């Protein structure tokens, strides 16, 4: 089923904000996972994932299984809620890196050109508990996606990244919202030369995930400074109206006024200075 999706973006040579209406596949044929905020004794049975919280003699008991992968946690809380939100794919099997790398078919961009693409990224499912006072903490993270790591740059000064390959889309494709999310990437070539971009490395703090019944999505901007250097910055806005912001696993700190001297750097930015393809 196709439906119109209004997405804010800018396009063309001149950067002028405009609203573009994309035709997109709503993915109604796909069975989608239900993210959200639920009573604490919520239970899920979805595509091999079973998750439940039982109350036993005053103590809550959290049980989760996905295939052979099981977790059992005792919880002492006086009521509250369970939040099941998509989280950035940087936690499993170990919190090894703060960077996610997405490789895609290279795109050549003219000097001063701007383009908006959509790429897919893996996601993980975070289970949070919210106490009656409103304090939240993550109790479990699970994923349907098998992780793979890579190295951006050399071994001496590069960074280990969570690796993902994606096709390039110019409209939001239908996808299973429990396996993959969508990254809207606005690429702006600020250099005077043609640039070729075939990957984006995004800092964990720059991943602001939003979700609704069909999509898990994040936005980022890539500003190309030279054919080999670009700054990738997370954008804390949903790609369409009505999306809910995911609970974050850490809190972003306030920026020092001296930090953003260039107007491009902030604590959600990463400078890709070891190549763009």
């Amino acid at each position, binding site marked *: 089923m196709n439906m119109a999706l209004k997405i804010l973006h800018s396009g063309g040579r001149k950067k002028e904000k405009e609203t573009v209406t994309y035709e997109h596949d709503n993915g109604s044929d796909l069975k989608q996972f239900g993210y959200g905020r639920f009573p604490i004794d919520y239970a899920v049975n979805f595509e091999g994932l079973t998750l439940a919280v039982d109350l036993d003699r005053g103590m809550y008991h959290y049980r989760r299984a996905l295939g052979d992968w099981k977790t059992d946690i005792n919880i002492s809380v006086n009521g509250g809620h369970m939040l099941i939100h998509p989280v950035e794919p940087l936690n499993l*099997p*170990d919190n*090894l890196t703060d960077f996610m790398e997405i490789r895609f078919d290279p795109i050549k961009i003219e000097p001063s050109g701007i383009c908006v693409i959509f790429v897919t990224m893996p996601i993980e499912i975070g289970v949070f508990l919210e106490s009656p006072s409103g304090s939240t903490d993550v109790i479990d993270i699970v994923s349907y996606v*098998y*992780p*793979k*790591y*890579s*190295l*951006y740059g050399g*071994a*001496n000064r*590069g*960074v*280990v990244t969570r*690796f993902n390959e994606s096709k390039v889309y110019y409209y939001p494709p239908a996808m299973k919202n429990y396996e993959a999310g969508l990254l809207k990437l606005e690429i702006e070539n600020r250099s005077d030369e043609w640039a070729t971009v075939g990957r984006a490395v995004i800092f964990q703090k720059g991943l602001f995930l939003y979700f609704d019944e069909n999509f898990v999505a994040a936005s980022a901007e890539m500003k190309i400074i030279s054919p080999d250097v670009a700054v990738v910055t997370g954008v804390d806005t949903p790609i369409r109206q009505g999306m809910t912001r995911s609970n974050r696993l850490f809190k972003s700190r306030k920026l020092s006024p001296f930090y953003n001297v260039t107007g491009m750097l902030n604590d959600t930015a990463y400078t890709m200075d070891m190549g763009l393809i």
Partner: protein
Amino acid sequence: MADNTTAILVGNSFLDTPLFGAITYGNLLAAILILVGTYVVAKVLSVIVMRVLAGKVEVNNSTFLAKLVRWLTYFVGIVAASPFLHIDFSGLIVAGGILAFAISFASQSTLSNFVAGVLLMFERPVGVGDNISVNGTEGYVEDIGILSTTIRTYSGIFVRIPNESMFTSDITNYVAHIARRFDYDIGIRYSDDADKAIKVIKGIIEKHPYALKNPAPSVYVDELGNNSINLKVRIWAPSAFWWDVRTDLLWKIFQALRKADIDIPFPQLTLWYGQEPPKPAKTGKGSGFTPQEVLGKSESSPENAVKVIK
């Protein structure tokens, strides 16, 4: 203009006015200014030292160095201010110099360890928690002190290495870089399909999360050995996990190869008894083999290997 000149002359004459003996107000003022300046400079320098060393060395060590810098600055300031107060440190300095010479002679190794410790803090070839090898000692760096560095070996033994020895030794830091490569040499039978084996091995590597996608692993025929086709497998992994990946993958590769009916051959030796080699037999087993047949069919089979030797 004339009034200004008078004021300066009056000012100068005030500063030249004796306060105690030969000490004038000007001398006192200069000494106070130097001491206050010294105090400020010492404070600033100690803060700079703390900030420069923050995260690079243990807090105890950085505090110690900051205090050392502060007291050295105080000493320099006092020495600089002393002539204005007509205090003669020359005798004291000579005596102190002799004392310092004697102390430094007596504690030569201690001082060299101290200097080496300071240099190590700035050069930072190792950090706390790093996996290193120095002077044949391998283990994790527990602490980098002013005088010595302590290492916990893989078997949990505490080893203290004087910083001078650390500084002058070849240090191998296994985790200084974010990723590292390790190799396997895997032999397969001559009868096996090397392309298939390479595909199987690459498939197993691809499934392992910590076997890095980039730099890409390489698997290739490295050598046609006496008993086997030797494959070289080169894999990059995050330095923090490389040993786990190495131990995990080797067994998985072996299992996958065996599942694909690719085996690792036994070493073989074919003996000829000074007579014509037996003619090739069409029936195969039990009636004699050519070397080609042996290599091509049955080198992994112990009983056939025995037949060959017979």
